[in-house]
């Protein structure tokens, strides 16, 4: 009787997969089965991971701003990676060829990483500190507001020793 009850509880609770929150460790990119390029070295660096998709209009709108952030902060120790959640390799390749995102992108074709992270919206940008823990989460792209917030956070993180 008790075993059955435990089994039932397990069946109901394992269906849920919790969203990663600020303070949680971000899953290592190297073991997330990402394709479409070389996974960058992130140890000891500030990491920004932007989840996007070829069918997501706000994701496209965020690319120029993220590209500028990448250009401004890369020399100071920032690694910015776009992770596409497109399952079709052809859709991903066509999009990258057409729009040429101004920062390195990888494809999460198996949607392994995004299922682990459980993004709240598309796009979602995660800022990860040098310790590998999530420092902030930006759900959606809100133009200048998101851009300014990201820059403020990155300035503060890069100033940390």
């Amino acid at each position, binding site marked *: *009787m008790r075993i059955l009850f435990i089994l039932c509880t397990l*069946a109901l609770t394992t269906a849920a997969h919790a969203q990663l929150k600020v303070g949680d460790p971000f899953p290592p990119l190297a073991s997330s089965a990402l394709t479409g390029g070389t996974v960058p070295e992130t140890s000891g660096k500030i990491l920004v991971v932007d989840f996007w998709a070829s*069918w997501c209009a706000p994701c496209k709108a965020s690319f120029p701003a993220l590209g500028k952030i990448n250009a401004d902060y890369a020399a100071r120790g920032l690694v910015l990676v776009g992770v596409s959640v497109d399952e079709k390799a052809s859709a991903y390749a066509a999009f990258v060829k057409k729009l040429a995102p101004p920062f390195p992108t990888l494809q999460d074709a198996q949607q392994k990483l995004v299922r682990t992270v459980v993004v709240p919206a598309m796009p979602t940008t995660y800022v990860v500190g040098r310790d590998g823990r999530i420092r902030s989460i930006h759900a959606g792209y809100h133009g200048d507001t998101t851009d300014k917030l990201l820059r403020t956070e990155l300035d503060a993180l890069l100033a940390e020793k």
Partner: protein
Amino acid sequence: MRSLRLPLALLLAATALFTAGCATTTARVQPWERATLADYTMRPDRDPLALAMAEHVYFSRESATGGRGVGGSGCGCN
């Protein structure tokens, strides 16, 4: 009384396992799974002719035209 416990437990277990698939997290389409929903073919207004036809049928049946938006009539019920 004790003989009823096992069938009751089995029934509860079967119900729990059956309804586990209905948990909100599994039934909900996740943000990264919306490629099909975001497809152009899912847009209701992708075909102007079909839209005009639907509007015409709606007008014929309901004796009303327009009002397909979400503005409502001021009743606050929308």
